[in-house]
């Protein structure tokens, strides 16, 4: 653990009033068009230039202009923070950031009772983490919330989480009977490392985001005095499980704010992959994995809805304990406008009508295969080149264009050099005649070069788009090719099958022969190409546009807000509670995300069936009125 002094000023929370107080739009509560105040929770994500998923968040915030967004961002590294933010849209009313990478020893010295509370909760937490069984989720959750309450009552936990007491609790939990086998082997350095990493993971507990003082915001009387924290939002939207969702968990615990979790890549899986790259010892990795697994499980359990970005993510989430009833796959949306002209023109129409006004469209060479992407090892270009060698045997006129930038890093550069060497070895330069200058049938281009000024030209350059990856998450280039109406041949990795549906050819990964055969089949059959391209474009426009993404989230927001209203006490101008401000009908018993049959089955035995108020018999009126008064007073 690094305890060196950092230049980060303590307690640095940026508060950005984007407009003057009197110019702010006051929230309008329209009937039928509810304005939802959404707390967007990111970790190493949105406002930062180098953040993951910043494009998606930006589109979401801009697309849902009728709602209000508060951004709560955790930064992952100092470098990320230095690089600055992307330009923020005006819908983003407040931005609060906190660093996860620096440890401000806040110097909070807890009293004896606070220390005892800490020891009890932390002991519970690490016991739940260290025990291999699955039955301790509630202990984990209650310990987590206990720590959060302690942090809220007594101040930051950074010092306590690093203290000797924490290490001792960890040691006791590791040596306890029933603990993980790897935990039994933990030595003192492992314990210290785990304590340090847990402290880092639990930093969101010590933030000062959990305030509920938002009475003035709603009626504008004290607008700007303090826009409150997560207690004031109607809905928390975490852009990943893990650290980003931790504030959302606490908001749910403290204020009952519903939590929506969106994951485009599984955070837990990234943890595993990242941990395998580091030189941590086995006990540390085991304990850390157990912690993250428990935390992820708790997030999935508490979330009102979970929206995986693809079926692959969905499988992982189900595996990690997410309730199937809560899962709604929302595919990421992509900008389709720039590909529209090419997609609608089809493959040959430009060549057929050269006098059309939109003459900037590239001419597709019917013999050309195109690969577009970032050049790195996982794209398996070597296999693609071998496949192309097979294609050339069948179709001597075929050409292959590899368009894309090199991924950062020496490894990728070396890979590009290797691919170029292999291409030169496999395919000698060819010329049309005896006196012409030859060129290689395989060309490497970058977007922005003279041949390929824009990305759309890359897809327009060929008749068939090939994807040869061995590892792929959500295949962006495939979706772009679909937008362009190109026939595609791709390998069966990641979410490819899910994305392409029936509108392209899919071959096994690392199988150049199959890839070659599929390419040849498409090169020889223009009609089939056109058919598949049109179908692909239609599918992409239906499923992967920004609009569908935003629309899906819009309806999910409204769904959640209508089913999980945050029950706040409403005050009048004098600060007295306002009775009857919360109508009783806003409370829906039971879990609405379950199927209808299950819900009614659950609700039937205990509760009175819903009856209109005018239909209530006289002796029941008093009871109902009492209940209403009780609701109002709460």
């Amino acid at each position, binding site marked *: *653990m690094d305890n060196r002094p950092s230049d980060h000023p303590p307690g640095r929370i940026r508060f950005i009033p984007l407009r003057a107080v009197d110019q702010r739009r006051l929230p309008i509560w329209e009937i039928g068009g509810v304005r939802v105040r959404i707390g967007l929770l990111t970790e190493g994500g949105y406002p930062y230039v180098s953040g993951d998923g910043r494009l998606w968040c930006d589109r979401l915030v801009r697309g849902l202009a009728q709602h209000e967004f508060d951004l709560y961002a955790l930064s992952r590294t100092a470098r990320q923070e230095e690089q600055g933010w992307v330009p923020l849209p005006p819908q983003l009313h407040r931005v609060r950031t906190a660093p996860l990478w620096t440890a401000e020893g806040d110097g909070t010295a807890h009293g004896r009772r606070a220390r005892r509370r800490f020891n009890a909760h932390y002991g519970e937490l690490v016991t739940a983490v260290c025990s291999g069984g699955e039955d301790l989720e509630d202990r984990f959750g209650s310990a987590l919330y206990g720590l959060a309450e302690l942090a809220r009552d007594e101040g930051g936990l950074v010092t306590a989480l690093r203290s000797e007491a924490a290490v001792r609790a960890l040691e006791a939990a590791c040596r306890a009977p029933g603990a993980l086998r790897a935990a039994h082997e933990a030595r003192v350095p492992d*314990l210290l490392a785990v304590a340090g990493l847990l402290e880092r993971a639990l930093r969101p507990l010590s933030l000062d985001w959990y305030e509920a003082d938002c009475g003035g915001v709603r009626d504008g009387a004290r607008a700007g005095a303090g826009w409150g924290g997560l207690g004031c939002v109607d809905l928390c939207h975490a852009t990943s499980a893990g650290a980003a969702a931790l504030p959302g968990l606490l908001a749910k615990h403290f204020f009952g704010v519903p939590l929506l979790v969106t994951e485009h890549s599984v955070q837990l899986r990234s943890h595993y992959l990242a941990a395998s790259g580091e030189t941590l010892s086995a006990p540390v990795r*085991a304990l850390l994995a157990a912690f993250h697994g428990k935390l992820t499980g708790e997030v999935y359990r508490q979330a009102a809805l979970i929206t995986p970005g693809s079926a692959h993510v969905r499988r992982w989430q189900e595996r990690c304990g997410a309730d199937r009833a809560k899962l709604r796959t929302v595919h990421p949306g992509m900008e389709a406008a720039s590909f529209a002209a090419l997609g609608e023109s089809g493959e040959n129409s430009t060549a057929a009508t050269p006098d059309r006004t939109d003459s900037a469209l590239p001419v597709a060479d019917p013999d050309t295969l195109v690969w577009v992407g970032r050049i790195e090892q996982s794209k398996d270009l070597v296999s693609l080149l071998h496949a192309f*060698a097979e294609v050339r045997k069948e179709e001597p006129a075929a050409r292959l264009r590899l368009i894309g930038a090199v991924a950062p890093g020496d490894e990728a550069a070396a890979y590009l050099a290797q691919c170029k060497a292999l291409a030169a070895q496999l395919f000698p330069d060819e010329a049309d005649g005896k006196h012409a200058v030859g060129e290689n049938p395989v060309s490497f281009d970058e977007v922005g070069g003279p041949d390929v000024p824009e990305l759309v030209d890359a897809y327009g350059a060929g008749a068939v788009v090939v994807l040869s990856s061995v590892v792929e998450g959500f295949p962006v280039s495939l979706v772009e090719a679909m937008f362009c109406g190109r026939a595609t041949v791709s390998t*069966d990795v990641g979410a490819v099958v899910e994305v392409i549906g029936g509108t392209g050819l899919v071959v096994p990964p690392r199988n150049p022969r199959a890839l070659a055969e*599929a390419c040849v089949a498409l090169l020889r059959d223009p009609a089939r190409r056109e058919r598949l391209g049109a179908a692909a474009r239609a599918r992409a426009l239906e499923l992967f546009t920004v609009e569908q993404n935003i629309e899906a989230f819009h309806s999910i927001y409204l769904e959640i807000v209508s089913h999980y209203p945050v029950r706040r006490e409403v005050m009048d101008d004098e600060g007295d509670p306002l009775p009857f401000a919360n109508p009783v009908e806003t409370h829906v018993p039971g879990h609405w995300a379950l199927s209808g049959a299950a819900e009614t089955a659950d609700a039937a035995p205990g509760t009175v069936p819903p009856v209109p108020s005018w239909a209530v018999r006289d002796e029941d009126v008093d009871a109902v009125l009492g209940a209403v008064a009780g609701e109002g007073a709460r």
Partner: protein
Amino acid sequence: MTGTPADQGVDTRARTGASTENNTSAGTGNSTGSTTGSSAGHHTASSTGSSAGTRKGTGGQGMAPQHDSGQLDAPRAPAGTGGWDARSEGLLNGGAPAPGRIPSAVDEAEPEQSRPEGTESAETESAEEEGVLTGSAVADVEAAFAAVMGTGSPARTAAPSSAPAPSAPAPPPSSPAPVPPAPSAPAAEAGAEAAAEEPAEASAVASTPSGGAEREAPADRPVRRAGARRGAADPVKALIHRHRELCERAVDPLEIAAGLEAHGVTDRAAARFRHRDVFSLAEEMYARVPHHGEGGGAGSAGPPSQGERPGADPHGTPLPGEAGTGPGRDGRPGGRGTAALLLLPLLPGALCAAALLALRTLEGGQARVTAGVVGVVAVALAVRACLRHGPLRGRERSSTSTRAWACWLLGYALLGDGLLDTALRGGPDGLWPPRLAPALGLALAVAPAVWCARLLTVRAQRKLATSRGLEEFAGAVRPLLLGTFTLFLCALLALLGGAGALLGEEAAYAGAGSLGALLLLARLLMAHGRPGAPAVALACAGTVELLALCSVFAGRLPGCTVLALPVESVVTSWGPGAVPALACATAAAALLIRAVPALSRASAHVPPGGPR
């Protein structure tokens, strides 16, 4: 799931696997897809002998040869009685299961079946697709269906041109060997190799993305024909062998699943190992591989633990010969760090000695004052450098008051005794001589202080790495701390004596010695992240000295003579050096009592630059 399953079990699993795979491949979660898939798989299973190689990958999994991605196993007969079926016979007899192959060993999944799972717009989407695909797409759909059902289709006609050899289930030429020992490949593979004999083969082997280690050498291939079916018993074993490191390192089945997916193993590939998905495949692999701790510490890749070293003594008696060796773990190994560690601490002493020499040799008040001021500033800067780099570096910035009190204590050691002495005699009348010997001794003692702190750090880190428990560590560090402190004290007293002898002054063992001890302990505590107690101790000692001086002067006020009495009595009994000695020794003792438990905690010795 590793045992040899009974006949019936295999059959069932093949079918369920088929339906599962169909589901995943087609991306549907609905029941129609599953029934279709199951029937398709069943159909294929029943007609395996002839048509195993002719189907498309969308169908059943159990015999999906074309679908074999290169990194996975080629089709082969299951060894053991349980898995014997018609297809195995076919493999044995014919070598290649079936002639001819579909032009596309491709999944051109039918639109009806290939809906992404669970999207809310599934219905509209399928409607849309059907709308788009009507007419022109029908041919594709038909072809796909026909291929799945294993019947003749128009799509098959294009086959022979691309793959004349009867080698349908051939893995690609650049595939890793399923089982590295050569003679264990399916006979069917030979055909593929014949087809794949190309000039570029060598380069393919050399330039495959995952390195040549996993790839078979081309020279091995002809040999591999021989024992075709052997090694086929356990496809998961080959997979485990390929991902051995991943499996051994893994702490969790999910970690293996993540690693497998990162290597391109999909659910469909897992279906070939008769698993429902990657997760259950990973579970089997996790269960089958011995992990760290069981197999003798295979996975202890963490900090270079010397824990198994036989000489590790639980009570911390230092082993001979390990004191100064090794670069330590504070991230400053090697040449420059060592030089800085050795030479920098000597600088304050050298500068102080030079300044004193200048004071002695120079004539004239101006020059001497200049030399004195320059000397003080130079020594202060050198001490600051020593404290900023090296083992005495504080984790947090020390507070201004702590620094001020430390300066006051040092200033008192230089000038305070003389002032007190003259004040008690009624002075001061003009300047009084400073005590130079303690100053020189303390400046020289910076070097042993740094070295002792270094010794403590290195040894404590070593103990940390070898300790199994916190108590054990504390027990080992306590004597180490006391020993180091004693060592420093001896060095300090020797240096003080030497400086006194050199300068011809009386050596202030008690005052300067206790001050040195106090400063070292304070700095050690600060360097290990405990700045609270040192601040209090320094402030107390400084306040006592300040009060002593003030009380003497206050005693001159009329009626306040009693104020000066305690100091007077102390000074008359033991001399003026007794005041700082008492103050500093008490503070140092208190600090030592505090330091022993504080520094014997493991959390105080977390190496900087460790996990943040």
